């Protein structure tokens, strides 16, 4: 894997280069500043670099802004960006992930942990290479319109260019980072698109992804007054994590999202209005939870939203089975 490491400390650059070459036989390119890194990217084939290691605290442009600039480059919308930094405060962690970081390592770093993180990034790069190879294969056109290439309803999908929306793997890393920093005062909650399977079946893969992006944008707009991060976890479910101090009222939030969706008037390629609506699950506070419990809370938030969406649909058709009279 070709890695661009950017840090204003020559010792860190030397250490990281030596380590990466030793453990993974990676190709390492180094830059002493964010502007040098961007210059290097502009002068080479955009796909030359496959993974980024950014320090945060650097003169002029910091590593968070560098991550934001890298994400704007067409070839790096999904490339792994690992922040390698001594800044362990939550505000830096939040800003880094919101700017597009996929992982976060605090200095002084443990080499075993560092090796694990790099391996994860490498797996991500390899999996994306496979997808790219498939897309550019001679039979790609046939596959693209075939049934086999449909978006997997149950799998996470990366949604790009939406404020505070990050990849599912980045969300897991973010949550793990919070656990390590003993910062548990956050809340997780989720929204599930009602009857996602009907949209997945009826729409083309591209249309379905556009729909997922529109819904994500709508939720993001409704949360804009708060600090949050969101990811699409698959199965029509959007997982959100928000700052401590704000515990969302889920029924009001759900109503706001659905009103916004109604106003957006989302249509298919054939101009048919789609009427997507979401159901909200329970808001779960992460206070005093251990790492495993935090991950389990994410699962619970997801399950409760999916259950709420299923229940909404069931009650629509099971009205006469509830014991009430019509």
């Amino acid at each position: 894997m070709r890695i661009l490491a950017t840090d204003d400390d020559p010792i860190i650059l030397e250490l990281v280069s030596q380590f990466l070459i030793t453990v993974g036989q990676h190709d390492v390119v180094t830059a002493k500043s964010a502007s040098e890194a961007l210059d290097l990217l502009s002068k080479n084939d955009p796909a030359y670099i496959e993974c980024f290691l950014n320090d945060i605290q650097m003169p002029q442009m910091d590593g968070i802004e560098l991550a934001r600039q890298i994400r704007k480059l067409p070839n790096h919308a999904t490339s792994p960006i690992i922040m390698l930094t001594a800044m362990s405060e939550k505000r830096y962690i939040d800003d880094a992930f919101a700017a597009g970081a996929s992982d976060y390592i605090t200095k002084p770093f443990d080499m075993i942990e560092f090796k694990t993180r790099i391996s994860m990034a490498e797996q991500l790069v390899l999996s994306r290479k496979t997808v790219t190879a498939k897309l550019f294969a001679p039979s790609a056109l046939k596959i693209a319109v075939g049934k086999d290439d449909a978006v997997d309803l149950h799998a996470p999908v990366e949604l790009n260019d939406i404020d505070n929306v990050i990849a599912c793997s980045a969300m897991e890393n973010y949550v793990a980072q919070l656990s390590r920093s003993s910062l548990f005062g956050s809340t997780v909650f989720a929204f599930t698109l009602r009857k996602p399977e009907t949209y997945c079946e009826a729409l083309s893969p591209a249309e379905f992804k556009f729909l997922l992006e529109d819904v994500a944008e709508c939720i993001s707009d409704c949360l804009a007054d708060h600090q949050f991060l969101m990811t699409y976890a698959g199965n029509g479910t959007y997982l959100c994590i928000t700052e401590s101090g704000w515990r969302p009222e889920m029924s009001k939030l759900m109503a706001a999202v659905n009103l916004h969706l109604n106003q957006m008037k989302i249509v298919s390629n054939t101009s048919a209005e789609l009427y997507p609506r979401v159901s909200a699950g329970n808001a779960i506070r992460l206070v005093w939870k251990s790492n495993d419990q935090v991950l389990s809370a994410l699962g619970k938030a997801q399950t409760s939203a999916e259950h709420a969406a299923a229940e909404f649909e069931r009650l629509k058709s099971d009205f006469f089975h509830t014991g009430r009279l019509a």
Partner: protein
Amino acid sequence: MSSVALQIPGLDRIRLRFLDLLEHRKVNIARHALAAWDGETAEEINANLEAARSILHQIAGTAGTVGYEALGITAQHCEAQIIAHIEGPYADLAVCPGEIIWFIDTFVEACDGLAE
């Protein structure tokens, strides 16, 4: 330092380079600390403290990884003291807290200990 770090070929060379740079960085930190202590305006004091903090931040991030954990922690403490002052309620006064100078003195002493 983890066993993996110890296995990196060339680590001794990196540690020597760290110690070489440390001497230069220590002098710069001490120079900025003295300039802050002698400073007559809040801007002058804070600019020098900020410059010292920036160098301490680099040392705090590297020292532990190359095997000098105690020095890294000392640098972190100095950095925290400076941040507390710069972000605190007295940052607009032309005063350099004596605690910062005391912490930096401890750091300089730790650097000298390593050099010996």
